[in-house]
């Protein structure tokens, strides 16, 4: 900055701004006594549809995979026990295809990995293998 203004800048810098009103200052200090909570995460999820979709799809696919890997509760032969499971699996197929699309769209992992995770043939193999 031009040196010719130095004296004026010096004079201006000696003016002290009027104080922020004490009530406003106290409200700020009072608010800062409470820690920042995790509510921001929820707001972020609800406010960002892509993030919310990714979280929802991830949780859903995880639940499906974990559920299929859990051991059968009954000692009956698998062919008898798995009838309802097969029916549920067939019913899930269209929604899995939809899920695959959503996962491919929003997930950072590769499309092939998503397809392998959601593949009905894989589910059938798992069920038949157990």
């Amino acid at each position, binding site marked *: *900055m*031009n040196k010719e*203004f130095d004296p*004026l*800048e010096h*004079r*201006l*810098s*000696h*003016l*002290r*701004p*009027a*104080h*922020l*009103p*004490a*009530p*406003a*200052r*106290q*409200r*700020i*200090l009072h*608010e*800062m006594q409470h820690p*920042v909570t995790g509510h*921001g995460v929820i707001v972020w999820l609800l406010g960002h549809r892509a993030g919310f979709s990714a979280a929802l799809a991830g949780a859903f696919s995880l639940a499906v995979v974990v559920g299929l890997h859990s051991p059968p509760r009954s000692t009956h032969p698998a062919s008898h026990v798995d009838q309802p499971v097969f029916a549920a699996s067939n019913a899930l197929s269209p929604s899995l295809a939809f899920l695959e699309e959503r996962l491919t769209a929003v997930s950072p992992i590769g499309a092939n990995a998503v397809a392998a995770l959601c593949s009905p043939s894989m589910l059938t193999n798992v069920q038949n293998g157990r």
Partner: protein
Amino acid sequence: MTSSAAISIWKNVSSVTDDATAGTMWHRMLHRCGDGLFLYARQLCRNDADAADVVQEAFLRVWRKHANNGVTEPDLPALCYAAVRYAVLDGQRQAARRRRREAAAGETWYDQPPLFEPGLEQAEEHNALEAAVRKLPVEQREVLTLKIWGELTFQQIATVTDESPNTVASRYRLALAALRLRLERGTS
């Protein structure tokens, strides 16, 4: 509320009450820049009650957003000044009527409390400086406030005001030139 009532309330407002040495960098920031943020908000709001609300909202907004993300202390002033500007503009967008009223009042200063703490020495010079600052155009006064009392760099001011650094520096020079001219006329 009448202007005299507002002034009387203003005079009753106590001074700084926070303890800057006891807190975090956020407390230090409030202690160091609270008055400057308020001065800046007053440039934009023209209403001291609104300006105080804006500072509170802006400061807490920055605190909530950056309290846990590793922001460093040197970055805080520019963030807070930008938040003040955003809060004012946001409020103005939400209230068109209020915006027109404030824009109309932007070039004139009615019975407002002093912008600066009264100086015990050289009161005449103090008053002349304050009067000259008040007469500056809004955009020049904004840059002057951010540079002198906000202690921001031209680059930071450019970010806050969404202008180029050259424009900001130009406005600052124009403001100083206008101030000097007014002060010389006043003394001659």
